[in-house]
């Protein structure tokens, strides 16, 4: 029973929120708002996938702000733009995702190799990323002029933006990786009991580095998406997203201690946060009170989900 509440609790909370907002606001229950909601949640979803891969290991990744800053600047300089003569298009996007992966790999190697807590290494990598972004920025904001990339945010297929489809595809891929590959299954096992896996002869470090690398690639992709939305390379593109992503993951049922949850859980969390931000505006809650209301609902949702488990989780850090 407790198990089931933990699995389906967040989804039930999401449905309850949707129901309440749908009753209170006629605009909330329109197709236009559904398109808007999925579009608004797309970037956070991709960042949260990255953060989730690291969280299920029992590690934490705070590097999104820096990695996304560097990648946002990089992509806006590699595709057609106002500052450089480059026009790499899709190749530029791939290079930037690779750049993100390289940053993630660095976080992983530092954490595993030096045995430094991931909290510290990822903060350090974030600082490096912001430094790289600052150098690339060089005082002049690059404006993207590549119509192909800008189409990601403005063009629509069947009413939904391409960013929405991209996010859905990423979610599906991440779920498949988690479900059917060795990496995905070992990641959960590492979070559950790293020492046991190590004793059984599995090279844990390798899988940890791979998970951090995947997370970095996700941040790279998210940076491309946000650049397509905003139309220019912005150093602060990822500011605050690390914490938003970790919040979304935890609200959805991925545990900070590792070993539990996963992509599907975290996506429910992303939807909860996105619906909340959207719905509170639509039903007309005062902006001065919105943040507090959001905080109360998030704490309440997590508390309610973990309530049946509180005996088992005797030690909470």
């Amino acid at each position, binding site marked *: 029973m407790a198990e089931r509440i933990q699995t389906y609790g967040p989804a039930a909370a999401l449905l309850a929120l949707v129901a309440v907002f749908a009753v209170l*606001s006629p*605009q909330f229950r*329109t197709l*236009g*708002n559904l398109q*808007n909601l999925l*579009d*608004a949640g797309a*970037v956070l979803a991709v960042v949260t996938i990255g953060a989730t891969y690291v969280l299920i290991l029992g590690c934490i990744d705070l590097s999104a702000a820096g990695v996304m800053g560097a990648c946002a600047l990089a992509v806006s300089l590699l595709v057609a733009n106002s500052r450089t003569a480059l026009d790499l298009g899709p190749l530029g996007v791939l290079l930037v995702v690779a750049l993100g992966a390289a940053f993630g790999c660095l976080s992983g190697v*530092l954490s595993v190799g*030096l*045995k*430094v807590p991931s909290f*510290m*290494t990822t903060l*350090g990598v974030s*600082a*490096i990323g*912001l*430094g790289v*972004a*600052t150098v690339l*920025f060089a*005082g*002049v*904001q690059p*404006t993207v002029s590549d119509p192909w990339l800008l189409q990601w*945010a*403005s063009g629509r297929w069947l009413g939904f*933006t391409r960013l929405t489809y991209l996010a859905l595809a990423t979610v599906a891929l991440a779920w498949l990786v988690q479900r059917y590959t060795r990496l995905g299954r070992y990641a959960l096992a590492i979070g559950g009991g790293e020492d046991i896996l190590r004793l059984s002869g599995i090279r844990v470090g390798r899988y940890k580095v791979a998970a951090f690398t995947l997370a970095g690639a996700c941040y790279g992709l998210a940076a491309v998406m*946000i650049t397509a*939305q*905003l*139309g*220019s390379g*912005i*150093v*602060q*593109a990822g*500011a605050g997203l690390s914490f938003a992503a970790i919040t979304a993951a935890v609200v959805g049922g991925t545990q900070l201690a590792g070993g539990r949850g996963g992509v599907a859980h975290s996506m429910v969390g992303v939807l909860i946060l996105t619906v909340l*931000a*959207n719905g509170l*505006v*639509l039903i*007309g809650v005062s*902006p*001065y009170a*919105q943040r507090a209301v959001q905080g109360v609902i998030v704490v309440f949702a997590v508390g309610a989900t973990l309530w049946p488990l509180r005996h088992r989780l005797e030690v909470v850090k």
Partner: protein
Amino acid sequence: MTTIRATFALLAAGTLLLAACGGTDSTASGGDTQKPDGACKPEQIKLIGQVRNQTNPYEAAWLQGGDEFAKKVNLTQQRLTYDGESAKQQEQIRQVLASGDARCTVLNVLPNGDSDTTPIVKQAQAAGAYLVTQWNKPADLKPADYDRWIAHITYDGKDSGKQIAEALIKAIGGSGGIVALQGILDTAAAKDRFAGLQAALAEHPEVSLLDQQTADFDRAKALTLTKTLLTKHGDAIKGVWAANDDMALGALQALEAAGKSGKVAVVGIDAVPDAVKAVQDGTMTATISSDGPWQGGIGLAMGYCAATGQLNVASVQPRAFYAKQFLVTKDNAPQFATPKVDPAEFECANLFSRVTGPVADG
């Protein structure tokens, strides 16, 4: 044990990295430290410009203006950036004042927040360095009580909020619904600018404020928020009032995605290059410029003139003042697209030509 050593190594590396980010190329000049006021030779003067970071166009332009003034007097400006961290800002000031001849040092500083100004002023006063602060200071701290704190320059947020509101109201034809995107709600800038909007609305009862929300001065948040507001109010929205250009540009992206670009008027504040370009293209109605390059140059110019004896600090009146700001519209946008400093404004006789009035109880 290895973990501890590794942690230290990483911390050390991090500190080095942060120091490198600061971009300090200190040119410590020796010489005697006891000099009467205003007796520095021009070549002894050390010019320092300190802002949060170089990663936004406004502060980058500020430092650029400082460089241009320094070039005019055959010196170089030492650029300091503190990444929005108050402790780092204080530490940089301490280091700068401890190296070289503090009495011939000129500081043109953007304090991180109101409360950061007090220790900066006290340090500069104690070391005898000339100081100009901009934007932030606590109301009860007055330059007139110090002989080294030449001036505090700021801008009237209520006035800028009102000016863009009036431009917006004019653009929508004097009636209809608008929405407001506020900045971080507990900052003075957000409060003053919004008060300006409300003042303009009070004079135009036929314009209604459909909604007001906060997007924290952030472009990405403004994009999402504007989409939500478009869902909520639809075609009733004739104009978007944003408390800064980043949010205005975010709103513009949302309007573009909704196919309403150019049909809904958008105004902002700051005159960042993207916004000036949007004004030039006609997708944005207006923005306000505080003229970053002028801000970067004028503080150094004031200090330079005081240090060389060409400006008597005690005679400056008012010492804390609002400076002139400029409404950027389609007509004058081209001249703001490539902001230039006018060297004549940095002459010792013209330093205070942009004063529009004293800061209340300043």
